[in-house]
């Protein structure tokens, strides 16, 4: 592994596209996505269901189903992953890149002790380890997840849901991967346990120096655990930047509307985004958010938005932020739209 420059990204994704073939035509689930993740950094990936978040996470790890096609570039430490053979990808996964699933209940083998899960994982990737080294490393990782060493030889059913998710995280981290994808890791858990797991993810940087891509639909979770956030809509990243900045001054209307519709204790009035995310077989022309956007202008359905950097350093793809020379005359006039049928309200 070449980690010369500490600020060099662990993972560099450029113009990544993922299609699924369907009877109605290709679904462009990920449509030209670019971002970097640096060592020890947590990047939150948010958006509604059907925006391509999970496909993006799995696409990076090469875990897409057959019938999908990938194009673009994913560089993991100087190594290109797109186009790698399945066997090469398998050797990278686990050892260098990990995945934490949503459902901790179904991912552990009920007939195997926790110790055996760790032994299997470590044995597959580091066959030279001795029995004692395996135990010592596993127990140490479990302990950092808050699982006492006395429980090392227990079976999965002897643990609660939150404990099992801790074990899953420990299993992903015991190989010391440089990059981990966590796909909705707390969705199946209770609020208090969710908060405990978020605290663990929040401390990953300090404890493991692991870079994390945290996929979630809950902006509250991003605010708790992530330094940076990327907002995804219809297969594209529409805004990306420092989490504090994005949350306090969202540049893209979609980010702003998502924030307003998140229900938390400080919410004073209910708000929602009209309509639903588009069909990715045939997304709307121009900016795909324009049919739901309260700020839509004449230019929005006609020309694809261009990515610009705001003065605060966020990347945003929205004509509200220009670039002005590319907007045709009269393009900034508000877009006249027919009323959404009530039916289209999700």
């Amino acid at each position, binding site marked *: 592994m070449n980690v010369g420059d500490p600020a060099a990204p662990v993972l560099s994704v450029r113009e990544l596209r993922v299609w699924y073939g369907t009877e109605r035509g290709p679904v462009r689930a990920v449509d030209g996505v670019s971002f970097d993740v640096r060592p020890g950094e947590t990047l939150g990936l948010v958006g*509604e*269901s059907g925006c391509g978040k999970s496909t993006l996470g799995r696409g990076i790890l090469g875990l897409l189903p057959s019938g999908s096609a990938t194009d673009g570039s994913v560089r993991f430490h100087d190594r290109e992953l797109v186009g790698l053979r399945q066997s090469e990808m398998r050797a990278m996964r686990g050892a260098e890149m990990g995945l934490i699933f949503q459902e901790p209940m179904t991912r552990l083998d009920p007939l195997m002790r926790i110790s055996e899960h760790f032994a299997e994982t470590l044995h597959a990737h580091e066959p030279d380890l001795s029995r004692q080294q395996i135990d*010592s490393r596993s*127990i*140490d990782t479990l*302990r950092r997840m*808050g*699982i*006492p*060493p*006395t*429980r090392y030889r227990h079976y999965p059913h002897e643990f*609660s*849901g*939150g*404990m099992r998710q801790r074990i899953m995280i420990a299993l992903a981290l015991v190989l010391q991967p440089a990059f981990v994808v966590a796909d909705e890791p707390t969705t199946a858990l*209770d*609020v*208090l*346990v*969710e*908060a*405990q797991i*978020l*605290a663990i993810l*929040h401390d990953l940087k300090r404890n493991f120096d692991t870079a994390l891509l945290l996929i979630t*639909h*809950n*902006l*509250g*979770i*991003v*605010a*708790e655990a992530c330094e940076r956030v990327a907002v995804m809509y219809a297969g594209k990243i529409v805004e990306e930047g420092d*989490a*504090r900045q994005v*949350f*306090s001054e969202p540049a893209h209307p979609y980010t702003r*509307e*998502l*924030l307003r*519709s*998140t*229900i*938390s*204790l*400080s*919410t004073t009035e*209910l*708000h*929602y*985004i009209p309509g*639903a995310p588009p069909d990715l077989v045939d997304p709307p022309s121009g900016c795909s958010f324009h049919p739901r956007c309260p700020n839509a202008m004449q230019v929005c359905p006609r020309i694809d938005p261009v990515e610009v950097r705001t003065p605060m350093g966020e990347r945003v793809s929205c004509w509200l932020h220009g670039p002005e020379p590319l907007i045709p005359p009269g393009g900034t006039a508000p877009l006249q739209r027919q009323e959404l*049928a*009530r*039916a289209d*309200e*999700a």
Partner: protein
Amino acid sequence: MPTKPDNVLDDDTPATAEGSRPIVLDVRDLQVHFALRGGFADRLLGRSSGSVKAVDGVSFTLHRGEVLGLVGESGSGKTTTARALLGLAPITGGSVVFDAGAAAGGRIELTHLRERQFRSLRQKIQLVFQDPHASLNPAMDLATAVAHPLKIHKVTADRAEIDRRVRDAFERVGLSPAERYLRKFPADLSGGQKQRAVLARAIMLNPALLVADEPVSMLDMSVRAKILELMLDLKRDLELTYVYVTHDLATAKFFCDTIAIMYLGRIVEIGPAAQIYEDPKHPYTRSLLAAIPEPDPRRSVTRNLPRGEVPDAARPPMGCSFHPRCPAAFAPCGWEARDVQALLEQRWTDISEQQYETERVTVGGPVELEVDGELGRRALLPDGKSGSGAAVALLDEMRSADPDEPFWRGVQAMQPRPDGVELTFREPVDPALLQHGSVRVACHLHDPRFAAQPAVPPAVKEPSENDTTS
């Protein structure tokens, strides 16, 4: 859709302070206990192996048009309570009286109803599940699905009447124009649209009470508010009464008039929603509030979260069930032998591997939970190979390392013995729901009997901006 008859306020209906709105549901000391089967030998000898008290003495009253939130984690008994109202969980004690008005059959005691009688009652009490996708038959188009209750309950066979009522329900839930949706299948719809269809089906029979079990938690954040608003509109237009089951106090805040916080089968705090949010009294309520993620990084984290998870309902903790997790627990909360093991395990996750290996030898085995035939209030921590007195030394060190640990407030005596150290705990006291202004709370912190105790602990940290680090 026919509205409710006007003469529902008959003389038998108890008038109340709630603007004299009639009581729709009166639950008194509801119990749902499941007997454990135990091993083969137990069954052969007819020995009882105890029971899981999924719901253990829950009482509340619901007036017409009111929304009650049953809030708690998995295993708190909130869903079992809701299911018992529909006869989907066996009521083993207490009383549940449902009263949809004289025209709907007057007061009905649910406790001893047979399944067949429950079936007809479910015209008046409807249930909405968490997962709209699983609640709809994928092979049934929406019009058929929404008309299904009319068929099952043999309300009408008149095609024109069925069609009229289905269209009316579609329009009411915002699946409009209805033509566009009548022949669609669940797979063609988004999650929010599916939940609308489920609501259309639920209001088809003109129910009085709707039990909604986490109706928005499977939905995207961007549509949750829409579905909650729709449910509030339906409530107003159709004079519905809701029981809203959720683990999320943030959505409950917008939806409920009354909140009941449940933990391990019991209500630990109940009162008007505004009061609960403004001044949460039970440490568990405070924890639930503090755990809600705030979408504002400037206000986030460093919370005093309870450790661990909801314990096994088959072996509930002594005293207050919440005491092993409670940051504010003190002497009478029910400290017991099992807590010693938990405390040791907690310590062993924090110390180094080397130190753990040493201490594991110091302690001669698992904590003995039964001392001289007494279970619970006494514990024996046996000495290991390091010889006599090692266990007591370990406990002393643990105490000095973390003197604020609530556990120590419950230890009455630590007595060295030849084979280890014996701990005796203070008498556990079961907290009762006590009235505090407009709320009732089951917590010794708010019990005047313990107010004068010298070891009153510091208050639980508030989820306020003061203790945030940014």
